[in-house]
């Protein structure tokens, strides 16, 4: 029997994974701070939601369609990609300040970002934010990275590194 597929798969390299978008900003932070302040996005296997009434994106999305919790719930935890984005520094490598969790499935959008409480307040957002596409993620990321709290943390870690360098470490 000949192939019933009437298309060939597209290699859509321009479609970035959300974690890679965050990773690019980690690289920018390293450049900005001469590799002293480090941003990292790493896989995370713990709970992420700080409020029991917040639904996961996949669950929320599913609720807009025909959805049987008995049939579907088992599948929802599968194929999830959950990451923790944190800030550290060259001279405090064991220290992590968590900025947010990122949680998405296949497809990547909509995704959920669970923000640090103070950053959420500073940028007038809820802790749990849904991004429906890459543009929304980039816009949110810009607000988070430029929040006063982020500046405080980055400045504090940068200062520690400079002091360590001056002290000859």
């Amino acid at each position, binding site marked *: 029997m000949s192939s019933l597929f009437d298309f060939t798969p597209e290699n859509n390299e321009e479609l970035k994974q959300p974690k890679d978008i965050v990773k690019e900003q980690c690289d920018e932070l390293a450049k900005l701070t001469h590799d002293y302040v480090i941003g990292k996005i790493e896989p995370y296997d*713990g709970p992420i939601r*700080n*409020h029991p009434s917040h639904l996961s994106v996949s669950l929320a999305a599913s609720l807009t369609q025909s959805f049987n919790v008995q049939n579907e719930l088992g599948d929802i935890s599968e194929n999830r990609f959950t990451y923790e984005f944190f800030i550290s520094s060259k001279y405090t490598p064991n*220290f*992590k*300040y968590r900025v947010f969790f990122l949680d998405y499935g296949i497809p990547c959008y909509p995704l959920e970002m669970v923000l640090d409480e103070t950053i959420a307040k500073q940028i007038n957002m809820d802790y749990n934010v849904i991004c429906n596409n890459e543009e929304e993620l980039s816009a949110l990321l810009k607000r988070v990275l430029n929040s006063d709290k982020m500046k405080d*943390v980055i400045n*504090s*870690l940068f200062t520690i590194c400079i002091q360590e360098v001056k002290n000859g470490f």
Partner: protein
Amino acid sequence: MIICFWNVNKNKSLDNLILELVQENKIDILALAEYDNDTEQLCKLLDQRETRYKPLQCIGCDKIKGIYNSKYTQKPLKATSRYIISTFSTVYSKLLLGAIHGPAMPRKSDDDRRQYYSIYIHDIEQAESESGINNTILIGDFNSSPFDGSIVRAGAIHAIPHKEEASKNSRIVDGHNYKTFYNPTWKLLALDKPPYGTYYYNNSNYENYYWYLFDQVIVRPGLINSFQEDSLRIITEINDKSLLKNDYSPDIAYSDHLPIIFEIQEEKL
């Protein structure tokens, strides 16, 4: 090692009283919630005396500040807006200390705190795993009572009031293994005279507890032997100045919370 926690209710005029608290009780680690002054300045004031103090490194944490005796070494491991997790090196061993100011009522329910503390405990367990230290102490204003689900439930803090049960180190629930904590703070619920907690709130609701024990210390079972049970108390006086009003509720001229204090016997670590 003497450890104290106090929610000072944003009272900016407490520094002298805090100095007296530290000196009178020979405190080694003082963690403060709602402290709006500068801990560097607090250390400078204390350094005029015999022991040198350093500010707790609380990068990224808005809710917890503090100071510690410079004979110990603090290494911060994790911070969020509400908590810090650090190691402290002593001559004998190392401790892991989590200090937290939990989400408050009425905006957050106990279910909310249960969710929040599940993330906190995941961070604690990750810090234990990465540092190889299991001598863990949790202190803070949890905004929960010792008997609330957010403190007792497996998957949340999982802090058990009985040493013998906590000493089993873990418990299996629905096939999942949950590590235990021991919560010695329960004993402060059964005092025979006020204060019956660290926070007082009288209301006209059908359910009224009057006193709340939001400020707690919780330890891993491995610390039960070094935790001095008799040392755990609620502080009601600092240098003969009462922190209570005539009706025994906390005098908000100082703070709406009372400090708790306890000792860890380092040589038993």
